[in-house]
């Protein structure tokens, strides 16, 4: 079981993703609705990994990724992305994101990404 911080400005995605992650046996220790909240919560909770939406108000997912990885180089951040955000995904990978989950959210797809990162 891994601990997770779920970051998304959409309440719907926060709920669905949290339920799917818990179904996969992980523990959602925190939820944030923008990048700034995620940076604060990361420092407090130190989760095993973060699922990070790319496009969010106040602070984008890429800025939050940079802020978290700037302080914690081992931080595992997985970007959550929609079609049409391919360029942003490439930017995120270059800033240290470990992988990405493409919407619509599917259990199998999420499991594969997490397993690959944590080498199950």
């Amino acid at each position, binding site marked *: 079981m891994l601990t997770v911080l779920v970051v998304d*400005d*959409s*309440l*719907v*995605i926060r*709920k*669905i993703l949290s*339920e799917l992650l818990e179904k996969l046996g992980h523990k959602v220790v925190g939820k944030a609705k923008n990048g700034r909240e995620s940076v604060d919560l990361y420092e407090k909770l130190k989760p095993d990994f973060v699922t990070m939406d790319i*496009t969010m*108000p106040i602070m984008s997912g890429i800025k939050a990724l940079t802020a978290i990885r700037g302080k914690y180089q081992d931080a595992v951040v997985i970007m959550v992305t*929609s*079609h*049409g955000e391919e*360029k942003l995904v490439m930017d995120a990978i270059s800033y240290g994101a470990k992988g990405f989950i493409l*919407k*619509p959210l599917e259990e199998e797809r999420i499991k594969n990404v997490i397993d690959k990162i944590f080498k199950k």
Partner: protein
Amino acid sequence: MKTILDNIVKSTALFLSNDMCVDVLKIKRIYEIQYSKHNSLITLTNSSKITVMINIDDSLFKYLFKRFFTTVGKEEKDSLIAALSDEIINIVVGLSIKDFSLKYADCELGLPFKASIQKRKEMIKKHPSHSMRIVTRAGNFICTVI
């Protein structure tokens, strides 16, 4: 604008039938919109800026809500109802710009927002628009580009 609307309607119909398992019966161009309390708007920017609006019938919305969420607590129900149409517009417009961007030009998608019926009516009155109705077994889904 019509091309963009066609793309959005196509991705919406696929989303409804494939992901939500609701039969799409008919897709029809309309000239008058039925404004619903379940609505959302989003801006799409490439060489120009357009606004996409969706209006979902209450019956279809209830069906979609049940498909999205298996368990809903009393305290979160209202917030989820308000947030679901924003998520749906994000999905269908996001899917449509994937094809559109490949064929035409890169598009930038804004964040979903809501507007009162009055405000939505004003937008339609002030700007050129095109609308299509997707008729399903559970109710109508109207897509508009402004």
